[in-house]
């Protein structure tokens, strides 16, 4: 039996790219949210959490309308940046970034909020800059949360199905990720291939989560 490894590679590529982007956006965002005293903060927190409760088909539907060159936003993207997000890998990255956002932001925001104010104050008194405080004092103190947020976002992107089904179009090497390939192979009665993909995803997800719980327990000691 020949197994096509591309769907698995593609899944890990999608999860890696998404997690990297999430770290760049989500980390400062979580810090800002933790310190913000804005009146509309609850509204922003609600928006961030929406992907947790929304059916993936709702998000998929809106993203399809947004990305499609048949509507104004997709048209505008195509004209200005030459970007076609529907049925492309880039589109999946944007979708997964939105979809996995709360998984990264929640634990990190909570950790920032739980840090005693005195840490920052002490560093300020010692003449450290905001940037130094952030990278040398705050970040090292929220390591466990940073780890679980990153890993959860990665693992959650691995398991994404509904959104990809709606905006991916099942293109080999582009949008046929492992979860979609499983669906495909089962439909074709090719249970052997489905088993391989499903088995790998199961094992990787298990190991990733195990590692998080393990490390967090060690950090708690």
């Amino acid at each position, binding site marked *: 039996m020949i197994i096509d490894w*591309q769907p698995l*590679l*593609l899944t*890990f*590529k999608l999860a*890696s*790219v998404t*997690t*990297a982007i999430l*770290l760049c956006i989500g980390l400062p965002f979580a810090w800002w949210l933790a310190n913000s005293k804005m009146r509309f903060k609850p509204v922003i927190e609600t928006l961030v959490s929406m992907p947790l409760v929304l059916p993936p088909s709702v998000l998929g539907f809106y993203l*399809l309308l947004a*990305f*499609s*060159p*048949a509507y104004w936003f*997709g048209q505008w993207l195509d004209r200005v940046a030459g970007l*076609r997000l*529907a*049925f*492309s890998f880039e589109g999946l990255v944007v979708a997964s970034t939105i979809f996995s956002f709360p998984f990264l932001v929640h634990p990190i925001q909570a950790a920032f909020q739980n840090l005693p104010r005195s840490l920052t104050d002490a560093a300020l008194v010692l003449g450290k800059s905001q940037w130094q405080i952030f*990278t040398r004092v705050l*970040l090292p103190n929220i*390591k466990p949360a*940073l*780890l679980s947020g*990153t890993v959860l976002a990665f693992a959650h992107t691995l398991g994404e199905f509904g959104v990809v089904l709606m905006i991916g*179009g*099942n*293109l*080999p*090497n582009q949008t046929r990720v492992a979860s979609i390939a499983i669906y*495909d192979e*089962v*439909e*074709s*009665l090719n249970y052997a291939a489905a088993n391989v993909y499903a088995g790998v995803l199961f094992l990787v997800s298990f190991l990733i989560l195990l590692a998080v719980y393990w490390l967090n327990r060690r950090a708690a000691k």
Partner: protein
Amino acid sequence: MKNNLSKLLIALLFIFTTSLAHTEQLTIAIAANLKYVFDDLAIEFKKETGIESQSVLNSSGKIATQIRNGAPFDVFMSADMEFPDGLYKDGYATTAAKPYAYGQLVLWTMKDIDLTRGVAGLADSSVVKVAIANPKLAPFGKQALKALDYYKVRAAIEPKLVYADSITQVSQYLDSKAAEVGFSAKSIVVAPEIAGKGKWVEVPPEAYNAIAQGMVILKHGSEVNRDAAVKFYEFILSAKAREIFAKNGYQLP
């Protein structure tokens, strides 16, 4: 730790992007009933022209919607004439729909069910669930309903119907024994990968409208892969391809 993590991510990215560097090839959107015959067609096409063609499989209706929303397919091989015709009229395809084969409807079961009475036999109490492809999206599902009408059993069978996403999902419903009988395509049940799984009978052609399957070259294809797309289009209409279709349970225009 953050440094190590970003180094790791960059390394991973590098590995993945290099391993996915892709070669120029055609992307053909195919109706689900072409699942098995397409492999033979692609192999022969490669032999004749050296061009790789990869398939994206779905129900014809879903493919049409994806194309309207910007899916980058080069050629669309539908299970009917309506979906490709609509795409041509609205400017998503550059050629009018051209029939390349006629699909045949079959009844298929993987249980010990008597199919000799044909569609009328589905009213029997031993048949609890009947799988058909979603008639809104899949031409074979639409014609299955026609056949129920023809034998005047639609009212009796309708409560037993389960709707699959496409004709290939019908196979899965039958294989998992979730449904006793299903309407499928002859091209599916005669495929070597499937042969020997259960038994099937043809639905007599007078019971439904002939399933003329049309093909179009899409806008994306004529913009990005013009020569290869035209070569593929011509190949599908060639004597060699007709021979492959005939061998795989299709009738020819």
